[in-house]
Protein backbone atom coordinates (compact mmCIF):
# COMPACT_ATOMS: atom_id res chain seq x y z
CA UNK A 1 0.00 0.00 0.00
CA UNK A 2 1.46 3.32 -1.00
CA UNK A 3 0.58 6.66 0.47
CA UNK A 4 0.53 9.91 -1.41
CA UNK A 5 3.39 12.22 -0.54
CA UNK A 6 2.30 15.68 0.49
CA UNK A 7 3.85 18.86 -0.84
CA UNK A 8 5.68 21.15 1.52
CA UNK A 9 4.20 24.61 1.48
CA UNK A 10 6.39 26.05 4.19
CA UNK A 11 8.95 28.88 3.91
CA UNK A 12 11.10 28.59 0.84
CA UNK A 13 14.42 29.63 2.37
CA UNK A 14 17.41 31.20 0.65
CA UNK A 15 17.95 30.75 -3.08
CA UNK A 16 20.17 27.83 -4.00
CA UNK A 17 19.97 28.49 -7.75
CA UNK A 18 19.54 31.83 -9.46
CA UNK A 19 19.19 32.14 -13.22
CA UNK A 20 19.02 35.42 -15.11
CA UNK A 21 17.91 35.93 -18.72
CA UNK A 22 18.91 32.47 -19.95
CA UNK A 23 18.62 32.25 -23.71
CA UNK A 24 19.28 29.48 -26.18
CA UNK A 25 18.49 29.34 -29.86
CA UNK A 26 18.49 26.32 -32.16
CA UNK A 27 18.48 27.50 -35.74
CA UNK A 28 15.51 29.83 -35.99
CA UNK A 29 13.86 28.55 -32.80
CA UNK A 30 14.19 30.36 -29.50
CA UNK A 31 14.14 27.39 -27.15
CA UNK A 32 14.81 29.65 -24.17
CA UNK A 33 13.90 33.30 -24.37
CA UNK A 34 15.11 35.22 -21.33
CA UNK A 35 14.37 32.73 -18.57
CA UNK A 36 14.96 34.00 -15.05
CA UNK A 37 14.14 31.94 -12.01
CA UNK A 38 15.10 31.21 -8.46
CA UNK A 39 15.16 27.81 -6.79
CA UNK A 40 15.32 26.92 -3.13
CA UNK A 41 15.70 23.65 -1.27
CA UNK A 42 12.85 21.24 -1.80
CA UNK A 43 11.09 20.13 -4.97
CA UNK A 44 10.24 22.76 -7.57
CA UNK A 45 7.98 21.68 -10.41
CA UNK A 46 8.59 22.83 -13.97
CA UNK A 47 5.29 22.69 -15.84
CA UNK A 48 4.75 23.31 -19.51
CA UNK A 49 3.35 21.79 -22.69
CA UNK A 50 5.48 19.86 -25.17
CA UNK A 51 7.89 22.20 -26.91
CA UNK A 52 7.80 24.74 -24.07
CA UNK A 53 11.56 24.48 -23.53
CA UNK A 54 11.48 22.42 -20.33
CA UNK A 55 14.07 19.87 -21.42
CA UNK A 56 16.29 22.59 -22.85
CA UNK A 57 16.14 24.53 -19.58
CA UNK A 58 16.95 21.40 -17.60
CA UNK A 59 19.86 20.55 -19.90
CA UNK A 60 21.25 24.07 -19.48
CA UNK A 61 20.93 23.93 -15.68
CA UNK A 62 22.50 20.44 -15.67
CA UNK A 63 25.46 21.84 -17.67
CA UNK A 64 24.74 19.51 -20.61
CA UNK A 65 24.55 22.48 -22.95
CA UNK A 66 25.75 26.06 -22.42
CA UNK A 67 23.26 28.91 -22.89
CA UNK A 68 23.72 31.49 -25.67
CA UNK A 69 22.94 34.26 -23.24
CA UNK A 70 22.29 34.90 -19.57
CA UNK A 71 23.87 33.23 -16.59
CA UNK A 72 23.12 31.15 -13.55
CA UNK A 73 24.71 30.00 -10.36
CA UNK A 74 23.77 26.85 -8.50
CA UNK A 75 24.82 25.96 -4.96
CA UNK A 76 27.29 28.84 -5.19
CA UNK A 77 28.98 27.53 -8.35
CA UNK A 78 29.20 29.43 -11.62
CA UNK A 79 29.13 26.95 -14.53
CA UNK A 80 30.37 29.69 -16.83
CA UNK A 81 33.89 28.92 -15.57
CA UNK A 82 35.67 25.59 -15.94
CA UNK A 83 36.22 25.24 -12.19
CA UNK A 84 32.64 26.28 -11.37
CA UNK A 85 31.26 23.83 -13.92
CA UNK A 86 33.31 21.00 -12.48
CA UNK A 87 32.29 21.90 -8.93
CA UNK A 88 28.62 21.98 -9.93
CA UNK A 89 28.89 18.64 -11.75
CA UNK A 90 30.36 17.12 -8.61
CA UNK A 91 27.18 17.95 -6.71
CA UNK A 92 24.71 17.30 -9.50
CA UNK A 93 22.32 14.41 -10.02
CA UNK A 94 20.68 14.29 -13.44
CA UNK A 95 17.93 12.06 -14.71
CA UNK A 96 17.54 12.82 -18.43
CA UNK A 97 14.20 12.56 -20.23
CA UNK A 98 15.27 9.33 -21.91
CA UNK A 99 17.99 7.89 -19.70
CA UNK A 100 20.27 5.73 -21.79
CA UNK A 101 21.27 2.34 -20.46
CA UNK A 102 23.86 -0.14 -21.49
CA UNK A 103 21.20 -2.86 -21.87
CA UNK A 104 23.58 -5.73 -21.14
CA UNK A 105 24.50 -4.21 -17.76
CA UNK A 106 22.79 -5.30 -14.58
CA UNK A 107 21.20 -2.60 -12.42
CA UNK A 108 24.26 -2.73 -10.16
CA UNK A 109 26.70 -2.55 -13.06
CA UNK A 110 24.93 0.42 -14.60
CA UNK A 111 24.86 2.45 -11.38
CA UNK A 112 28.47 1.41 -10.75
CA UNK A 113 29.39 2.71 -14.21
CA UNK A 114 27.74 6.07 -13.50
CA UNK A 115 29.53 6.14 -10.14
CA UNK A 116 32.83 5.78 -11.99
CA UNK A 117 31.83 8.70 -14.22
CA UNK A 118 31.19 10.58 -10.99
CA UNK A 119 34.81 9.97 -9.98
CA UNK A 120 34.20 7.38 -7.27
CA UNK A 121 37.40 5.52 -7.90
CA UNK A 122 37.79 3.52 -4.70
CA UNK A 123 36.25 0.16 -5.56
CA UNK A 124 35.00 -0.79 -2.10
CA UNK A 125 33.55 2.64 -1.28
CA UNK A 126 31.97 2.82 -4.72
CA UNK A 127 30.26 -0.54 -4.37
CA UNK A 128 28.94 0.41 -0.94
CA UNK A 129 27.52 3.62 -2.43
CA UNK A 130 25.90 1.70 -5.30
CA UNK A 131 24.24 -0.63 -2.80
CA UNK A 132 23.05 2.34 -0.76
CA UNK A 133 21.35 4.14 -3.66
CA UNK A 134 19.80 0.94 -5.02
CA UNK A 135 18.40 0.29 -1.57
CA UNK A 136 17.12 3.89 -1.43
CA UNK A 137 15.03 3.31 -4.55
CA UNK A 138 13.96 -0.13 -3.31
CA UNK A 139 15.77 -2.13 -5.97
CA UNK A 140 18.07 -4.23 -3.82
CA UNK A 141 16.26 -7.38 -4.84
CA UNK A 142 16.90 -6.92 -8.56
CA UNK A 143 20.37 -5.39 -8.42
CA UNK A 144 21.83 -8.39 -10.26
CA UNK A 145 19.16 -8.39 -12.99
CA UNK A 146 20.01 -7.17 -16.46
CA UNK A 147 18.40 -3.83 -17.24
CA UNK A 148 16.76 -5.13 -20.39
CA UNK A 149 14.73 -7.51 -18.21
CA UNK A 150 13.43 -4.77 -15.88
CA UNK A 151 10.05 -3.05 -16.24
CA UNK A 152 9.81 0.62 -17.30
CA UNK A 153 9.16 1.71 -13.74
CA UNK A 154 12.16 -0.22 -12.44
CA UNK A 155 14.39 1.24 -15.14
CA UNK A 156 13.32 4.73 -14.11
CA UNK A 157 14.25 3.84 -10.54
CA UNK A 158 17.65 2.58 -11.71
CA UNK A 159 18.15 5.92 -13.44
CA UNK A 160 17.09 7.75 -10.27
CA UNK A 161 19.54 5.63 -8.26
CA UNK A 162 22.28 6.65 -10.68
CA UNK A 163 21.30 10.30 -10.22
CA UNK A 164 21.47 9.89 -6.43
CA UNK A 165 25.02 8.52 -6.43
CA UNK A 166 27.37 10.54 -4.22
CA UNK A 167 24.50 12.36 -2.51
CA UNK A 168 24.07 15.32 -4.90
CA UNK A 169 22.87 18.67 -3.56
CA UNK A 170 21.14 19.57 -6.82
CA UNK A 171 18.88 17.07 -8.54
CA UNK A 172 17.50 17.61 -12.05
CA UNK A 173 14.70 15.23 -13.05
CA UNK A 174 13.29 15.42 -16.56
CA UNK A 175 9.76 13.99 -16.74
CA UNK A 176 10.57 10.93 -14.64
CA UNK A 177 6.94 9.83 -14.30
CA UNK A 178 6.16 9.68 -18.03
CA UNK A 179 5.13 6.23 -19.17
CA UNK A 180 4.59 4.85 -15.67
CA UNK A 181 1.33 3.28 -14.58
CA UNK A 182 -0.53 4.94 -11.68
CA UNK A 183 0.98 2.68 -9.01
CA UNK A 184 4.50 3.09 -10.32
CA UNK A 185 3.93 6.85 -10.57
CA UNK A 186 2.84 7.01 -6.97
CA UNK A 187 5.87 5.00 -5.87
CA UNK A 188 8.13 7.27 -7.86
CA UNK A 189 6.57 10.35 -6.33
CA UNK A 190 7.36 8.98 -2.89
CA UNK A 191 10.98 8.52 -3.91
CA UNK A 192 11.19 12.06 -5.30
CA UNK A 193 9.65 13.45 -2.13
CA UNK A 194 12.32 11.63 -0.10
CA UNK A 195 15.05 12.85 -2.45
CA UNK A 196 13.79 16.43 -2.03
CA UNK A 197 14.56 16.49 1.68
CA UNK A 198 17.53 18.78 2.11
CA UNK A 199 18.21 19.00 -1.63
CA UNK A 200 17.35 21.38 -4.43
CA UNK A 201 15.24 19.37 -6.86
CA UNK A 202 13.94 20.63 -10.20
CA UNK A 203 11.27 18.30 -11.56
CA UNK A 204 10.03 18.72 -15.10
CA UNK A 205 6.55 17.37 -15.75
CA UNK A 206 3.42 18.06 -17.71
CA UNK A 207 1.24 16.54 -15.01
CA UNK A 208 -0.23 18.99 -12.54
CA UNK A 209 -0.82 16.04 -10.19
CA UNK A 210 2.95 15.66 -9.78
CA UNK A 211 3.21 19.32 -8.80
CA UNK A 212 0.23 19.23 -6.48
CA UNK A 213 1.60 16.22 -4.61
CA UNK A 214 5.31 16.97 -4.56
CA UNK A 215 6.28 20.59 -5.09
CA UNK A 216 6.55 23.55 -2.79
CA UNK A 217 7.12 25.85 -5.76
CA UNK A 218 6.17 25.74 -9.41
CA UNK A 219 7.45 27.39 -12.58
CA UNK A 220 5.29 27.43 -15.71
CA UNK A 221 7.19 27.61 -18.96
CA UNK A 222 5.71 28.20 -22.41
CA UNK A 223 7.44 29.09 -25.67
CA UNK A 224 10.73 29.42 -23.86
CA UNK A 225 9.46 31.97 -21.37
CA UNK A 226 8.51 31.81 -17.71
CA UNK A 227 4.77 32.39 -17.45
CA UNK A 228 4.46 31.88 -13.72
CA UNK A 229 6.70 31.36 -10.73
CA UNK A 230 5.34 30.86 -7.24
CA UNK A 231 3.70 28.28 -5.00
CA UNK A 232 1.10 25.77 -6.26
CA UNK A 233 -1.47 27.52 -4.05
CA UNK A 234 -0.69 30.84 -5.75
CA UNK A 235 -1.02 29.23 -9.19
CA UNK A 236 -4.39 27.78 -8.16
CA UNK A 237 -5.47 31.16 -6.77
CA UNK A 238 -4.93 32.74 -10.18
CA UNK A 239 -8.00 30.89 -11.36
CA UNK A 240 -10.25 32.07 -8.50
CA UNK A 241 -13.42 33.54 -9.97
CA UNK A 242 -12.41 32.43 -13.49
CA UNK A 243 -13.85 28.93 -13.56
CA UNK A 244 -17.55 28.37 -14.13
CA UNK A 245 -20.02 25.70 -15.02
CA UNK A 246 -22.48 25.74 -17.93
CA UNK A 247 -24.80 23.33 -19.69
CA UNK A 248 -23.29 24.15 -23.11
CA UNK A 249 -19.69 25.01 -23.96
CA UNK A 250 -19.26 28.76 -23.50
CA UNK A 251 -17.81 30.13 -26.79
CA UNK A 252 -16.19 33.02 -24.93
CA UNK A 253 -14.23 30.71 -22.61
CA UNK A 254 -10.48 30.29 -23.10
CA UNK A 255 -11.00 26.56 -22.63
CA UNK A 256 -13.98 24.38 -21.83
CA UNK A 257 -14.60 20.69 -21.54
CA UNK A 258 -17.42 18.35 -20.62
CA UNK A 259 -17.05 16.81 -17.19
CA UNK A 260 -18.27 13.50 -15.84
CA UNK A 261 -21.53 15.12 -14.66
CA UNK A 262 -22.39 16.16 -18.21
CA UNK A 263 -21.98 19.89 -17.59
CA UNK A 264 -19.16 21.98 -19.07
CA UNK A 265 -16.25 23.36 -17.06
CA UNK A 266 -15.08 26.66 -18.53
CA UNK A 267 -12.12 28.87 -17.71
CA UNK A 268 -11.58 32.48 -18.72
CA UNK A 269 -13.69 35.54 -18.00
CA UNK A 270 -17.06 34.28 -16.76
CA UNK A 271 -20.30 35.91 -17.92
CA UNK A 272 -22.40 37.78 -15.38
CA UNK A 273 -24.33 35.43 -13.12
CA UNK A 274 -22.26 32.37 -14.04
CA UNK A 275 -22.08 29.49 -11.58
CA UNK A 276 -18.51 29.78 -10.35
CA UNK A 277 -16.53 26.65 -9.44
CA UNK A 278 -13.69 25.99 -7.03
CA UNK A 279 -10.46 26.37 -9.07
CA UNK A 280 -7.81 23.64 -9.30
CA UNK A 281 -4.10 23.77 -9.99
CA UNK A 282 -4.83 22.66 -13.56
CA UNK A 283 -7.13 25.66 -14.07
CA UNK A 284 -4.39 27.99 -12.86
CA UNK A 285 -1.87 26.27 -15.14
CA UNK A 286 -4.10 26.61 -18.21
CA UNK A 287 -4.65 30.28 -17.46
CA UNK A 288 -0.91 30.79 -16.99
CA UNK A 289 -0.27 29.24 -20.40
CA UNK A 290 -2.77 31.57 -21.98
CA UNK A 291 -1.49 34.71 -20.27
CA UNK A 292 0.87 36.86 -22.30
CA UNK A 293 2.46 38.44 -19.28
CA UNK A 294 4.86 36.76 -16.95
CA UNK A 295 3.65 36.59 -13.40
CA UNK A 296 6.09 35.96 -10.60
CA UNK A 297 4.50 35.53 -7.22
CA UNK A 298 6.34 36.60 -4.12
Amino acid sequence: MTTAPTASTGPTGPATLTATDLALRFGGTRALDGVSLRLTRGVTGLLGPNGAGKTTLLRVLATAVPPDGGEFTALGHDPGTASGRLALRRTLGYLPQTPGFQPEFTAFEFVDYVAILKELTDRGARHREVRRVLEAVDLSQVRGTRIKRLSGGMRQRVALAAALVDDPGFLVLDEPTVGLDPEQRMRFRELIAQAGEGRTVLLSTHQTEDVAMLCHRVVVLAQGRVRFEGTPAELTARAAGRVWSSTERDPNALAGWRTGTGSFRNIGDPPTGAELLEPTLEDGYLLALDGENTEVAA
Partner: protein
Amino acid sequence: MTWHVADEDLRAYAHGELAPPLLWSADTHLTGCATCRARLADTTDPVALDAGWERLDAELDAPRQGLLERLLVRLGVADHTARLLTATPVLRRSWLLSVLFLLVMTVLAVRVADRPALFLALAPLLPLAGVALSYGPSLDPTYEMAVVAPVHGFRLLMIRTVAVLTAGLAFNGLATLALPGYGLLALAWLLPALALTATGLALTARLGPVVAPALVGGAWVTLLVVAKSQVHAHDTLAPFTAAGQSAAAAVAVLAALLLYQARDRFDARPMGGFANGGTA
Protein backbone atom coordinates in the same frame (compact mmCIF):
# COMPACT_ATOMS: atom_id res chain seq x y z
CA MET B 1 37.18 -26.82 -4.46
CA THR B 2 40.55 -27.21 -6.12
CA TRP B 3 42.45 -24.59 -4.16
CA HIS B 4 42.34 -22.66 -0.91
CA VAL B 5 43.56 -19.24 0.10
CA ALA B 6 47.16 -19.42 1.30
CA ASP B 7 47.74 -18.84 5.04
CA GLU B 8 49.77 -15.74 4.38
CA ASP B 9 47.11 -14.29 2.07
CA LEU B 10 44.39 -15.15 4.57
CA ARG B 11 46.25 -13.28 7.32
CA ALA B 12 46.72 -10.28 5.01
CA TYR B 13 43.01 -10.47 4.10
CA ALA B 14 42.02 -10.54 7.75
CA HIS B 15 44.08 -7.41 8.39
CA GLY B 16 42.68 -5.66 5.30
CA GLU B 17 46.11 -5.63 3.74
CA LEU B 18 45.55 -7.93 0.79
CA ALA B 19 45.78 -5.90 -2.42
CA PRO B 20 43.79 -6.37 -5.62
CA PRO B 21 43.63 -8.53 -7.65
CA LEU B 22 44.51 -11.12 -4.95
CA LEU B 23 41.90 -9.44 -2.74
CA TRP B 24 39.17 -10.05 -5.31
CA SER B 25 40.23 -13.63 -5.84
CA ALA B 26 40.04 -14.18 -2.09
CA ASP B 27 36.65 -12.44 -1.90
CA THR B 28 35.23 -14.61 -4.64
CA HIS B 29 36.73 -17.79 -3.20
CA LEU B 30 35.51 -17.09 0.33
CA THR B 31 31.91 -16.76 -0.85
CA GLY B 32 31.95 -20.40 -1.92
CA CYS B 33 34.42 -22.07 0.45
CA ALA B 34 33.26 -22.86 3.99
CA THR B 35 36.71 -24.26 4.89
CA CYS B 36 38.47 -20.98 4.13
CA ARG B 37 35.75 -19.00 5.91
CA ALA B 38 36.33 -21.12 9.03
CA ARG B 39 40.10 -20.62 8.73
CA LEU B 40 39.49 -16.88 8.36
CA ALA B 41 37.38 -16.84 11.52
CA ASP B 42 40.25 -18.53 13.43
CA THR B 43 42.75 -16.06 12.04
CA THR B 44 41.12 -12.78 12.87
CA ASP B 45 39.53 -10.76 15.61
CA PRO B 46 35.74 -10.16 15.51
CA VAL B 47 35.92 -6.49 14.48
CA ALA B 48 38.20 -7.18 11.54
CA LEU B 49 36.04 -10.16 10.65
CA ASP B 50 32.93 -7.93 10.50
CA ALA B 51 34.75 -5.55 8.17
CA GLY B 52 35.76 -8.50 6.02
CA TRP B 53 32.19 -9.75 5.85
CA GLU B 54 30.97 -6.28 4.89
CA ARG B 55 33.53 -6.14 2.12
CA LEU B 56 32.61 -9.62 1.03
CA ASP B 57 28.93 -8.72 1.02
CA ALA B 58 29.62 -5.75 -1.26
CA GLU B 59 31.61 -7.98 -3.59
CA LEU B 60 28.67 -10.31 -4.09
CA ASP B 61 27.06 -7.66 -6.31
CA ALA B 62 30.27 -6.47 -7.93
CA PRO B 63 30.18 -6.25 -11.71
CA ARG B 64 31.41 -9.42 -13.35
CA GLN B 65 34.69 -8.65 -15.02
CA GLY B 66 35.11 -9.97 -18.52
CA LEU B 67 38.28 -11.59 -19.77
CA LEU B 68 39.69 -8.36 -21.20
CA GLU B 69 38.84 -6.39 -18.06
CA ARG B 70 40.53 -8.95 -15.81
CA LEU B 71 43.58 -8.93 -18.06
CA LEU B 72 43.80 -5.13 -17.92
CA VAL B 73 43.57 -5.16 -14.12
CA ARG B 74 46.27 -7.81 -13.89
CA LEU B 75 48.42 -5.61 -16.12
CA GLY B 76 48.09 -2.83 -13.54
CA VAL B 77 45.27 -0.74 -15.03
CA ALA B 78 43.05 0.72 -12.28
CA ASP B 79 39.75 -1.18 -12.05
CA HIS B 80 37.64 1.91 -12.76
CA THR B 81 39.71 2.74 -15.85
CA ALA B 82 39.50 -0.87 -17.02
CA ARG B 83 35.71 -0.68 -16.71
CA LEU B 84 35.55 2.52 -18.74
CA LEU B 85 37.83 0.97 -21.36
CA THR B 86 35.81 -2.20 -21.75
CA ALA B 87 32.45 -0.40 -21.60
CA THR B 88 33.35 1.62 -24.71
CA PRO B 89 30.12 1.53 -26.72
CA VAL B 90 31.71 0.62 -30.06
CA LEU B 91 33.46 -2.45 -28.69
CA ARG B 92 30.38 -4.61 -29.05
CA ARG B 93 30.39 -7.94 -30.74
CA SER B 94 28.23 -6.68 -33.61
CA TRP B 95 30.64 -3.85 -34.39
CA LEU B 96 33.71 -6.04 -34.12
CA LEU B 97 32.17 -8.71 -36.35
CA SER B 98 31.24 -6.09 -38.95
CA VAL B 99 34.80 -4.78 -39.01
CA LEU B 100 36.18 -8.31 -39.20
CA PHE B 101 33.84 -9.19 -42.06
CA LEU B 102 34.79 -6.04 -43.97
CA LEU B 103 38.48 -6.76 -43.55
CA VAL B 104 38.16 -10.39 -44.63
CA MET B 105 36.27 -9.37 -47.76
CA THR B 106 38.85 -6.70 -48.54
CA VAL B 107 41.76 -9.08 -48.05
CA LEU B 108 40.08 -11.59 -50.36
CA ALA B 109 39.56 -8.86 -52.97
CA VAL B 110 43.21 -7.82 -52.69
CA ARG B 111 44.38 -11.39 -53.18
CA VAL B 112 42.12 -11.91 -56.19
CA ALA B 113 42.83 -8.59 -57.90
CA ASP B 114 46.43 -8.19 -56.68
CA ARG B 115 45.69 -4.59 -55.64
CA PRO B 116 46.96 -3.86 -52.10
CA ALA B 117 45.65 -0.29 -52.43
CA LEU B 118 42.14 -1.62 -51.75
CA PHE B 119 43.20 -2.66 -48.26
CA LEU B 120 45.46 0.34 -47.70
CA ALA B 121 42.60 2.70 -48.57
CA LEU B 122 40.07 1.03 -46.26
CA ALA B 123 42.22 0.20 -43.23
CA PRO B 124 42.77 3.82 -42.06
CA LEU B 125 39.04 4.55 -42.22
CA LEU B 126 38.08 1.83 -39.73
CA PRO B 127 39.79 3.30 -36.63
CA LEU B 128 38.54 6.76 -37.66
CA ALA B 129 34.95 5.54 -37.80
CA GLY B 130 35.30 3.52 -34.60
CA VAL B 131 36.71 6.41 -32.61
CA ALA B 132 34.10 8.81 -34.01
CA LEU B 133 31.29 6.49 -32.98
CA SER B 134 32.70 5.82 -29.54
CA TYR B 135 32.21 9.36 -28.28
CA GLY B 136 28.93 11.02 -29.04
CA PRO B 137 25.22 10.50 -28.68
CA SER B 138 24.83 8.30 -31.75
CA LEU B 139 26.07 5.03 -30.21
CA ASP B 140 26.67 5.87 -26.56
CA PRO B 141 23.39 5.46 -24.66
CA THR B 142 24.88 7.02 -21.54
CA TYR B 143 26.29 10.01 -23.40
CA GLU B 144 23.97 12.55 -21.75
CA MET B 145 24.93 11.31 -18.28
CA ALA B 146 28.62 11.28 -19.18
CA VAL B 147 28.48 14.89 -20.41
CA VAL B 148 27.27 16.22 -17.06
CA ALA B 149 29.48 13.92 -14.99
CA PRO B 150 32.58 15.39 -13.38
CA VAL B 151 34.87 12.96 -15.18
CA HIS B 152 36.91 15.02 -17.63
CA GLY B 153 35.43 14.64 -21.12
CA PHE B 154 38.85 14.58 -22.73
CA ARG B 155 39.97 11.79 -20.43
CA LEU B 156 36.92 9.74 -21.33
CA LEU B 157 37.56 10.43 -25.00
CA MET B 158 41.17 9.31 -24.71
CA ILE B 159 40.22 6.15 -22.82
CA ARG B 160 37.76 5.22 -25.54
CA THR B 161 40.16 6.20 -28.28
CA VAL B 162 42.81 3.91 -26.83
CA ALA B 163 40.28 1.08 -26.61
CA VAL B 164 39.02 1.49 -30.16
CA LEU B 165 42.43 2.19 -31.67
CA THR B 166 43.90 -0.88 -30.02
CA ALA B 167 41.11 -3.09 -31.35
CA GLY B 168 41.15 -1.45 -34.77
CA LEU B 169 44.90 -1.60 -35.19
CA ALA B 170 44.98 -5.20 -33.98
CA PHE B 171 42.39 -6.19 -36.59
CA ASN B 172 44.23 -4.30 -39.29
CA GLY B 173 47.46 -5.97 -38.16
CA LEU B 174 45.90 -9.41 -38.45
CA ALA B 175 44.64 -8.54 -41.92
CA THR B 176 48.13 -7.40 -42.85
CA LEU B 177 49.47 -10.84 -41.96
CA ALA B 178 47.13 -12.24 -44.59
CA LEU B 179 48.90 -10.15 -47.22
CA PRO B 180 52.41 -11.57 -47.07
CA GLY B 181 53.40 -10.78 -50.66
CA TYR B 182 53.69 -7.02 -50.30
CA GLY B 183 56.39 -6.62 -47.68
CA LEU B 184 56.44 -3.31 -45.80
CA LEU B 185 53.92 -1.84 -48.22
CA ALA B 186 51.22 -3.87 -46.49
CA LEU B 187 51.85 -1.77 -43.36
CA ALA B 188 51.46 1.57 -45.15
CA TRP B 189 47.97 1.98 -43.66
CA LEU B 190 49.29 2.54 -40.14
CA LEU B 191 50.48 6.15 -40.31
CA PRO B 192 47.48 7.31 -42.37
CA ALA B 193 45.23 5.59 -39.81
CA LEU B 194 46.84 7.55 -36.98
CA ALA B 195 46.74 10.78 -39.02
CA LEU B 196 43.07 10.38 -39.90
CA THR B 197 42.04 9.46 -36.36
CA ALA B 198 43.96 12.32 -34.76
CA THR B 199 42.67 14.82 -37.33
CA GLY B 200 39.11 13.55 -36.89
CA LEU B 201 39.34 14.02 -33.12
CA ALA B 202 40.96 17.46 -33.36
CA LEU B 203 38.16 18.61 -35.66
CA THR B 204 35.49 16.92 -33.50
CA ALA B 205 36.26 19.45 -30.78
CA ARG B 206 35.26 22.17 -33.23
CA LEU B 207 32.78 20.58 -35.64
CA GLY B 208 31.17 17.77 -33.65
CA PRO B 209 31.35 13.98 -33.94
CA VAL B 210 29.45 13.68 -37.21
CA VAL B 211 30.78 16.43 -39.47
CA ALA B 212 34.44 16.10 -38.42
CA PRO B 213 35.01 12.38 -39.19
CA ALA B 214 32.83 12.61 -42.31
CA LEU B 215 34.97 15.50 -43.53
CA VAL B 216 38.22 13.69 -42.77
CA GLY B 217 37.02 10.44 -44.34
CA GLY B 218 35.87 12.33 -47.41
CA ALA B 219 39.21 14.12 -47.68
CA TRP B 220 41.04 10.76 -47.50
CA VAL B 221 38.95 9.24 -50.29
CA THR B 222 39.40 12.38 -52.43
CA LEU B 223 43.15 12.27 -51.86
CA LEU B 224 43.25 8.64 -53.00
CA VAL B 225 41.17 9.35 -56.10
CA VAL B 226 43.44 12.24 -57.05
CA ALA B 227 46.56 10.15 -56.35
CA LYS B 228 45.15 7.34 -58.44
CA SER B 229 44.64 9.66 -61.40
CA GLN B 230 48.34 10.63 -61.27
CA VAL B 231 49.87 7.14 -61.61
CA HIS B 232 49.75 4.02 -63.74
CA ALA B 233 47.61 1.05 -62.81
CA HIS B 234 50.11 -0.88 -60.65
CA ASP B 235 52.19 2.02 -59.30
CA THR B 236 52.09 2.81 -55.59
CA LEU B 237 49.73 5.67 -54.72
CA ALA B 238 51.40 8.79 -53.28
CA PRO B 239 50.05 8.39 -49.69
CA PHE B 240 51.75 4.98 -49.47
CA THR B 241 55.16 6.09 -50.71
CA ALA B 242 57.92 7.16 -48.32
CA ALA B 243 57.06 10.85 -48.87
CA GLY B 244 53.38 10.17 -48.29
CA GLN B 245 54.12 8.27 -45.09
CA SER B 246 56.25 11.14 -43.81
CA ALA B 247 53.42 13.56 -44.54
CA ALA B 248 50.98 11.29 -42.68
CA ALA B 249 53.29 11.19 -39.67
CA ALA B 250 53.56 14.98 -39.68
CA VAL B 251 49.78 15.37 -39.92
CA ALA B 252 49.30 12.90 -37.06
CA VAL B 253 51.67 14.85 -34.78
CA LEU B 254 50.18 18.22 -35.70
CA ALA B 255 46.63 16.98 -35.20
CA ALA B 256 47.55 15.45 -31.83
CA LEU B 257 48.90 18.83 -30.71
CA LEU B 258 45.76 20.61 -31.89
CA LEU B 259 43.62 18.02 -30.12
CA TYR B 260 45.49 18.54 -26.86
CA GLN B 261 45.04 22.30 -27.22
CA ALA B 262 41.30 21.85 -27.68
CA ARG B 263 40.92 19.37 -24.80
CA ASP B 264 38.76 21.66 -22.63
CA ARG B 265 36.17 21.97 -25.38
CA PHE B 266 35.08 18.42 -24.64
CA ASP B 267 33.86 19.63 -21.26
CA ALA B 268 32.44 23.01 -22.19
CA ARG B 269 29.81 21.87 -24.66
CA PRO B 270 28.26 18.68 -25.92
CA MET B 271 29.62 17.06 -29.04
CA GLY B 272 26.55 17.56 -31.20
CA GLY B 273 23.65 15.22 -31.67
CA PHE B 274 21.10 17.50 -30.07
CA ALA B 275 20.51 19.94 -32.89
CA ASN B 276 17.05 20.78 -31.60
CA GLY B 277 18.20 20.74 -28.00
CA GLY B 278 15.27 18.58 -27.03
CA THR B 279 12.79 21.40 -26.84
CA ALA B 280 10.08 19.38 -25.14
